[in-house]
């Protein structure tokens, strides 16, 4: 197996055992980036020399017997909205093209402490505000399975780069699906943990009620290790959860027997494209064949959940961007200032209602859709992967509904705050990936990771590589 085909955990474990040098891993990544980035447009800031120096230091430390961290020697790149003191974080925007952070995100410090090698930053939707990966300022990111198709957003570079084997893991962020969408559309694994599970200190805000930090990686095992390192209370983020962080990798038993799967046929399947339904049903068949039980249930109050989700994300986004929307509206992409503009029309009482109803609606969803079940399963994206052209609002506002449809199945789980993963489960009739989305109760990341890992033990969708 080539080094590029190793998963994050395989690369880390190989380094720890002395089977591979960090320098070789970084050289592999740099060669892949040189070969494929011109077509994919994944990177914003690449620091190859610094990465090689960090790799040499890691190799030297291991050679003298210093114990390696759980991600030691593994090259990563991250969505360009994670602040590192002294470095530019563009947030995918023109407005922040010269913004130099004065602090380092807690999640980056935790990855540094685990020995990960940070090679730079990745393309993303402007201010993480679209589900497709379009970017008017740094160029659109392209899907490695077919460059005419969108990558999903907003963590576009993270999805495309991990799928293209340009690096082994990447941070994304997820407010309405921005980790799970590029994971599904590019054919990798993406985890959005429980709301508040991972610190957001030093991370660009989009909608503080729904923002989440998380990884795009090859496998559920990768996601488990990544989450174990990054989760936990952070005194610099007062909203971060105080629940203990379990050993997620220890929960990966490979066992599906006894897993109780609820399928929300209504809402999440309404209007789904046939190739997506086919891949999803085949994934359910795999779960059943391995001993899981699958039962169809009705998801309650989805209209309310969807309406309140829209109100919160747009009202909070409007507040955050108000100064720039007054002073520099021309510096936003058309689709973004158009989307933000609607947020100023939201009556304040609906915003408060949307937040106040969140607890009761979570209780209702768990009581009615998850009672007696371990996970809820849906397709991550109910439509086939769209092309960049047919979801480009800057060119044609009539593409609005197709653009918004991309995140229809992911947004509700942000409102509900539930831990949710997307894993590859097949391909559509045009050869683009299809994702299986699994959600569990609050703080039950171990459950979704166990189910996802067990699925990946008996399937090989996550091993398919789009590029030579």
């Amino acid at each position, binding site marked *: 197996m080539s080094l590029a085909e190793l998963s994050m955990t395989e690369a880390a474990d190989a380094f720890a055992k002395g089977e591979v040098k960090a320098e070789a891993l970084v050289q592999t990544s740099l060669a892949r980036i040189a070969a494929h980035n011109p077509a994919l447009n994944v990177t914003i800031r690449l620091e190859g020399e610094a990465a090689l120096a960090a790799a040499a230091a890691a190799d030297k430390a291991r050679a003298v017997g210093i114990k390696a961290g759980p991600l030691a020697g593994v090259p990563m790149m991250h969505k360009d909205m994670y602040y590192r003191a002294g470095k530019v974080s563009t947030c995918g925007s023109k407005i922040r093209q010269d913004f130099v952070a004065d602090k380092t995100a807690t999640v980056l410090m935790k990855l540094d402490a685990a020995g990960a090698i940070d090679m730079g930053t990745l393309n993303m939707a402007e201010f993480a505000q679209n589900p497709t990966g379009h970017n008017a300022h740094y160029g659109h990111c392209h899907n490695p399975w077919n460059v005419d198709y969108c990558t999903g957003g907003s963590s576009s570079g993270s999805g495309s780069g991990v799928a293209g084997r340009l690096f082994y893991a990447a941070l994304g962020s997820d407010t309405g699906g921005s980790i799970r969408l590029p994971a599904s559309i590019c054919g990798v694994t993406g985890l959005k943990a*429980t*709301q*508040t599970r991972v610190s957001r200190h030093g991370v660009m805000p989009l909608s503080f009620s729904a923002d989440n930090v998380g990884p795009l990686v090859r496998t559920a095992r990768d996601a488990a290790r990544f989450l174990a390192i990054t989760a936990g209370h952070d005194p610099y983020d007062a909203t971060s959860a105080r629940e203990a962080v379990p050993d997620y990798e220890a929960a990966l038993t490979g066992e599906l027997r006894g897993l109780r799967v609820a399928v929300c046929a209504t809402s999440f399947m309404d209007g789904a494209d046939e190739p997506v339904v086919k891949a999803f049903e085949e994934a359910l068949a795999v779960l059943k064949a391995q001993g899981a039980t699958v039962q169809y249930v009705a998801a309650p109050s989805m*209209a*309310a959940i*969807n*309406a309140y989700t*829209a*109100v919160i994300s747009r009202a909070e986004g*409007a507040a955050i961007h*108000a100064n720039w*929307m*007054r002073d520099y*509206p*021309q510096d*936003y992409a*058309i*689709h973004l*200032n*158009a*989307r933000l*503009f*609607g947020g*100023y*029309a939201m009556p304040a009482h*609906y915003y*408060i*209602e949307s*937040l*106040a*109803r*969140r*607890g*009761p609606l*979570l*209780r209702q969803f*768990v009581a009615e859709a998850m009672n007696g079940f371990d996970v809820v399963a849906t397709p991550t994206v109910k439509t086939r992967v769209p092309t960049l052209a047919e979801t480009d*609002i*800057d060119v044609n*506002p*009539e593409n*609005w*509904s197709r653009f918004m449809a991309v995140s229809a199945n992911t947004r509700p789980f942000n409102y509900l*705050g539930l831990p949710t993963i997307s894993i590859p489960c097949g391909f559509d009739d045009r050869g683009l990936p299809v994702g299986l989305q699994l959600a*569990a*109760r*609050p*703080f*039950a990341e171990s*459950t979704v990771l166990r189910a996802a890992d067990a699925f990946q033990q008996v399937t090989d969708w996550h091993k398919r590589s789009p590029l030579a």
Partner: protein
Amino acid sequence: MEPELVVPTMEAIRRWSGVECPNAAARHGLADMVGLIAELEKLRGTMVFEDEPSSFELAMRDCMEPGA
């Protein structure tokens, strides 16, 4: 045809927030809000007097897996 709400909403945004309508897509987005307004109308009466935002954190803890 553009819904009736678009022009007065643009004016309200300008007055309340000082933000001008930036482009045709923004007008299109406002027009698209007719559906959201209809959905919110259907939800009137569902919020009860004691509902408040912090109830979400408590609900998350209460909804954890049994025995967690």
